[in-house]
């Protein structure tokens, strides 16, 4: 664990969501979702297309209006907080569809990941991301829009890491990544947790891999939490296997 961080009691949730409702106009996509993520955990969220996973992550980051329910983070109520206040509080997201800054250079993309940081270690962190994804370093002066799909995904992950989050939200991080890199990304997630005490909330279609490294998991179906348990429990659950693992 990084020095200087106050040890959190691990049964005190870092993120606590209660009765969260959200939607798009007239259509409600989340019908009262409750879940929690404790410090230092990796929690996986699995569900089919359109179940509401992305909507939930967006709501946690404050870029999706919430109609009812609440989001607490580190003991403070963030339900009404602005998106940038949430980043400041330590929440970072790797969004669905990558959402990179296409016209800006790769380095600027990463540098903006640390937008709210003022410390002296930004340069070192930049190097750390470059070590993980050497292509980014090679092309760091080029506009990010020219990167291939998978390369952009690496950039999005790197950018989120640059903010040194307490809680990292990942929306399908392995999408579009070559299998070698899938291995690598899951290894990175594990390492972030081990070495830097980053808490991870992970949305994955690659449910097998996700549940394998997760401490706990939730299953979401049409905007509601349908099931929860430890990663292992879910992996062995008949219904989960049939609906999401395809075995």
């Amino acid at each position, binding site marked *: 664990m990084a020095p200087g961080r106050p040890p959190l009691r691990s049964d005190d949730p870092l993120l606590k969501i209660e009765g969260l409702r959200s939607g798009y106009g007239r259509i409600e996509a989340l019908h009262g979702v409750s879940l929690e993520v404790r410090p230092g955990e990796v929690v996986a969220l699995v569900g089919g297309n359109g179940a509401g996973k992305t909507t939930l992550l967006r709501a946690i*980051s404050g870029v999706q209006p919430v109609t009812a329910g609440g989001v607490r983070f580190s003991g403070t109520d963030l339900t009404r907080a602005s*998106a*940038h206040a949430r980043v400041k509080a330590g929440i970072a*997201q790797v969004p669905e569809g990558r959402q990179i*800054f296409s*016209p800006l250079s790769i380095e600027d993309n990463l540098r*903006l990941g640390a937008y709210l940081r003022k410390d002296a270690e930004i340069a070192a962190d930049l190097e750390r991301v470059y070590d993980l994804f050497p292509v980014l370093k090679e092309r760091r002066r080029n506009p990010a*829009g020219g990167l291939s799909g998978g390369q952009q995904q690496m950039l999005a992950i790197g950018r989120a890491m640059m*903010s040194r989050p307490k809680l990292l939200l990942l929306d399908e991080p392995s999408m579009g990544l070559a299998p070698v890199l899938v291995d690598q990304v899951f290894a990175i997630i594990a390492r972030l947790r081990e070495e830097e005490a980053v808490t991870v909330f992970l949305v994955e279609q690659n449910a097998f891999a996700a549940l394998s490294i997760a401490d706990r998991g939730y299953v979401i179906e049409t905007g509601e939490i349908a099931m929860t348990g430890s990663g292992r429990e879910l992996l062995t659950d008949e219904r989960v296997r049939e609906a999401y693992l395809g075995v």
Partner: protein
Amino acid sequence: MPDFLQFCVSGLTVGAVYALVALGFTIIYNASDVVNFAQGEFVMIGGMTTVFITAAGVPLHFAIPAAILAAMVIGLLLHRLAIEPARGASAVTLIIITIGASIFLRGGAQIVFDKQFHSLPAFSGDTPVMIGGAAVLPQSFWVLGGAAVIVALLWFFFNRTLLGKAVLATAANRLAARLVGINTSFVVGFSFVLSAAIGAIAGILVAPITLTSYDIGALLALKGFAAAMLGGMGNPLGAIVGGLAVGLLEALGAGYISSTYKDAIAFIVILAVLFVLPGGFFGRASTERV
């Protein structure tokens, strides 16, 4: 030859104003993808406020900062009251809002000020300086120098500061900008204030040469917009080059071809350039890929 020089001086001076208006477009566009058609009104507010404050007996060197401040306040209000409430609307909607704002500001200026033309005393006198046979007003140096300083500062801002990058990021992808912690509403508001200030400075610098009145904004917006596109939208250097080029084209066209069709000549050249370079001189090479 002296004729040619005279045309160039004339073109560069007028072009510098277009350039400053184009810069104003560039900044707001960079932050928000919006073409702010009220940009010309900032130029008007700068000039007219200075005229009226000095007419009230305030010395010029106090009147100028006051006028710039006034424009900045109006820029901020424009953002807070008209742009921010429409957050999330499409770019065309926002553009129509800025057109509404420009009509509103013009209507307001006609009440607050008047409908007359006004001039300001030149900063360093009216005696022309002869350069290679061309008679140059000292004020032209103020205009060109002012434009040069502003573009240098802006270049630094966008390329070397994190806030500058944040402005670009906000335009490139608003959602992602919010997700990395950029206060996008602040960034866009800031860009309105900044371009209001630049517009006002332009208005003050040129008022002694070109005169000013409540309705000079529309034409400047038109020319500034064309200049910005000729240079390549979003690029400060492009705005400057585009502005100077439009000014020069008009002057040389008027001098050598036809004064009646000088605006047409400028637009024909702009069209020709865009057909060859669809992104203007400095438009970013298309990074769109599928």
